[in-house]
Structures are given as C-alpha cells and as structure tokens.
C-alpha cells in the first residue's frame, strides 16, 4: 500500500507540473521527501518532451522538400517485428474464447494481450504467422477465411472439432493438389486446414494465409493490383473468366481467393497490412476505388494507420510501423 501511495503522490505532482505554464521552481520538489522528490525533478525536466508526432511530421515536412525518395528507397523497417505484410485481423464477439480455442486447437502462442473480455486486443503466433484477435460483446464481427497450412491435416482437424469448431468439410484429397478439411470456429472464422502434395515451398505463402471469396474475383484482383501493387502468382480460371483459385502477392505475403460459390460466400473481413508509406498507399487505394474508413493517423502503439473499405466488403487496415527512430 505504501508504494501505491507514492505512485499517487507522484501523479499528483506530475499533474500539477503539467498544469503550469511557467517552469516549476526547483524548490517545489524539496517540499516532498526523498525518492519522490527525485522523481519529480525528472518529471519537471520531461515537461518539454517533444511529441513523437511533431518529430515525425517535421521529418516528413523536411522530407517533402528533399529527403523522401532517398529515405523511402532504403526503408525496410516499416513492419513491426514479427509481422508480415498481411495479417488476418479477426474481429469477433467471443474474443477471449477465440484466443483459447486457437491455443487449444492450433497451438497458437500468445504474444501480446491487452484489454479484457469487454474489449480485447490479442496477438498470437501460429507457425510463421501472426494473427490479430480483436473484439468483445459489443463489437461488430468481421470474421475471415484463412488457408491454414499444417503438416497433418487430419490431426489438426480432429483437434479443432474437439475444441468446439464446427466441421464444414472432413479431410479429403483434392485433385488440384492438397489434402484439405474445413472448420468454422466459435467466432465464425473459416479455417481451410491443408497440406499441399507438392513439398516445394511457395515463396511468401505463410502458415496462415487470408482467403477471399469475392463475387467478381477478376475485379477484386484488379483492385488489389491498382490499390496495393499486388502481383498475381497463380490464376486458374474457366474460359468464361470464373476464377477457381488465385494466389496474389502483396509485399512479403500471399493472399488467396476463389470466386464465391455454393457455401463459400464473401465474408466482410478485416486485414492488417503493413506498407512502406501509409499515406501514399491510402491515396492510391482511394484512387483505385476504395472508400476511406479512416484517414492516416499516428497511433499510440507506434503505427501510423489508415483504413480503406473495398467494394467487396473487406476492410484494409493500412499501417506503417514508425518504430523508434
């Protein structure tokens, strides 16, 4: 309790310091004793601490004149460590329960959590991928579909069902070259648990790969190309243009898709996407037909973010990690 008291006393002193426009006299600290007084001295000097936003904005303004090209060409640390370009951003009501499910069923390892059941932000690692889980009872759900590459489809499928997932398709071998099963988790996300027959790795195809079922896949691919500079890696389609399956590269990640059909219908998914220059990509995505959901803003957690909705119902949360310069 004694420490709690000193914590509160310190905050009272900080609040008083921040409320003064003139610098606090040095003697003020001496009225309180010992350790607290020393901390107040540090706090007093911190009063002029520059805002990160100011520092970044000034750099940007100076950069607007001369620095931008040279800086941007060499910039490589625009993603938070541990993140790929594309991260599924699962927004669900039972967020806490979903995290537990992912641990139990898919061996997810929790990397970061804040908030509570009312409003949770959690990051888990599954294989080489990070998955963001955000939500709570009052959140609008935005589940996603994901291709989940595993060494043993049957075992993971059985674990998922045992942990409470609903089976959408039991494991079976598919002629296009993989063994695959499908489950829906308690948050409504679809997981296509798969193992490719061809063991040759596909570059940038990660353990958890976002999967889309757009109505109008060719148009969706064009949007990804124009908005985000996507490159088509694979495209299988009928002579009439019905896209059975496509793999498209965005930065260091691949996203997959197949035209909506039967039970596989569009989901209004959210995707967290790291880009080198969030402002530029935001503008480019708008001119490619996206709609602004939020303008570029610096976030307290160190990312500058903006978000774009595409006409297929997905939300692209664009982010540039600002790191610590």
């Amino acid at each position, binding site marked *: 309790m004694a420490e709690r008291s000193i914590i509160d006393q310190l905050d009272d002193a900080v*609040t008083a310091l921040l409320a003064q426009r003139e*610098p606090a006299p040095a003697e003020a600290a001496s009225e309180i004793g010992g350790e607290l007084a020393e901390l107040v001295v540090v706090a007093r000097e911190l009063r002029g601490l520059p*805002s990160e936003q100011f520092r970044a904005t000034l750099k940007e*303004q100076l950069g607007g004149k*001369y*620095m931008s090209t*040279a800086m941007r060409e060499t910039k490589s640390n625009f993603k938070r460590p541990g993140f790929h370009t594309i991260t599924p951003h699962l927004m669900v009501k039972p967020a806490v329960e979903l995290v537990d499910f992912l641990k139990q069923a898919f061996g997810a390892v929790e990397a970061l959590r*804040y908030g509570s059941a009312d409003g949770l932000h959690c990051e888990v690692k599954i294989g080489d991928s990070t998955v963001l889980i955000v939500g709570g009872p009052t959140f609008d759900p935005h589940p996603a579909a994901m291709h989940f590459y595993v060494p043993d489809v049957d075992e993971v499928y059985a674990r998922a069902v045992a942990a409470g997932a609903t089976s959408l398709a039991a494991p079976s071998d598919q002629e296009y070259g993989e063994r695959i099963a499908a489950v829906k988790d308690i948050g409504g996300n679809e997981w296509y648990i798969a193992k490719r027959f061809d063991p040759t790795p596909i570059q940038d195809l990660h353990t958890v790969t976002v999967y889309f079922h757009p109505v109008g896949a060719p148009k969706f691919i064009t949007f990804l190309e124009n908005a985000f500079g996507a490159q088509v890696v694979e495209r299988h389609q009928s002579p009439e243009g019905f896209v059975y399956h496509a793999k498209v590269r965005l930065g260091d990640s691949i996203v997959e898709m197949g035209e909506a059909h039967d039970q596989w219908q569009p989901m209004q998914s959210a995707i967290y996407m790291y880009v080198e220059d969030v402002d530029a990509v935001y503008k480019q995505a708008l001119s490619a037909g996206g709609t602004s959901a939020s303008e570029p803003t610096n976030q307290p957690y*160190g990312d500058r973010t903006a978000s774009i909705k595409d006409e297929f119902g997905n939300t692209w949360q664009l982010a540039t990690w600002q790191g610590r*310069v």
Partner: protein
Amino acid sequence: MSRVTESEERALIEAAQNDPGRFAELYELNFHRVYAYIACRIHDRSETQDLAAHVFQQALANIGKFKWRGAPFITWLYRIAANAIADQARKKSRELTETEGAADTSVASDLEQVERRARLFRAVEALPEDQRKVIILRFGEEKSIREIASDLNRSEGAIKQLQFRGLENLRARLREEAELK
C-alpha cells in the same frame, strides 16, 4: 541514435551537402539536442515546436554553405536556434514595449543543462515499450492519466504504475550517466 565520431559526422555532412536526401540522418542525430536547447529557454510547447521546425528548415536550406571549422555540427544548429530565439524575443518585445533590452544571441553557457535534457529525451526511447508509451503520451502529448488509460486500453492504476516505473528508470539512467562522466 547514438553519438558519432567527428569523422563520421563530417562524412554525414558531406553526404547531405551532395544529396539533401541524406539530411535525414543529421536530423535524427541532432533532433533531441536542438529541441532540448529550445525547450530549456522557451516554455511554451507550440513556440518550441515552431522554433525547432525553423532551425531544421534553415539548416536544410543552408547545408551547402556549412563549412567545417573544427566545431561540431550541433554548434552550428545551436547558433541558428539562438538567433531564432532572439529574433522571436525581439519581435515580442517590440509588440509589448520599446524599452526591452536586446535579446541575448549568444549560444550561452547552460549547455550542460541542454545536454542533460537531451540525454533524458533520448533515454525515454530506451524505456521498456509500455513505460515509453505512457511517458510519451503523458509528457510529450500532455494527456491525462484517464486519456492514456483509454488510449492504451488499460486501467488508470496501471498507467500510474507505468508512469512511476518509467520515471524511476529514467532517474536511474541519468544517475548512471552522471557516474560515468
């Protein structure tokens, strides 16, 4: 960014003179000291920011004219800052009264205090991430504990704890540096 040697600094200046795109490195290297220099004299955040922006804009515009005479680059930046502060003081004093004396344009003798302040600003960057965020939001953005708790989705008690730990760590860091000197 850590300190650089004299020859590294000269190389950075030459690089920026040949390609202003390289000025970013000098900006990063000197930002905290320039900001601290101004913040030690001007106690209004928005004036400090305007002056800091002015100093770097002037430095970038005139980098081609900078000549190495043995003094570190920061001295040149301090000179620009001192002139800018003096200009501003003169402008203000003209607005207020004609009788104010001319402002001091010397780079001045309190550089030790400036260095200490700049070290403190840099030390904030090395704090554990959650403490760093709280200190930056509290002192850099001047947000209340309640606002920070809401931004970071933590309880107010947790934010006060992080503020306390952050200040403790900064005090320890300053002590270590003072002992090393």
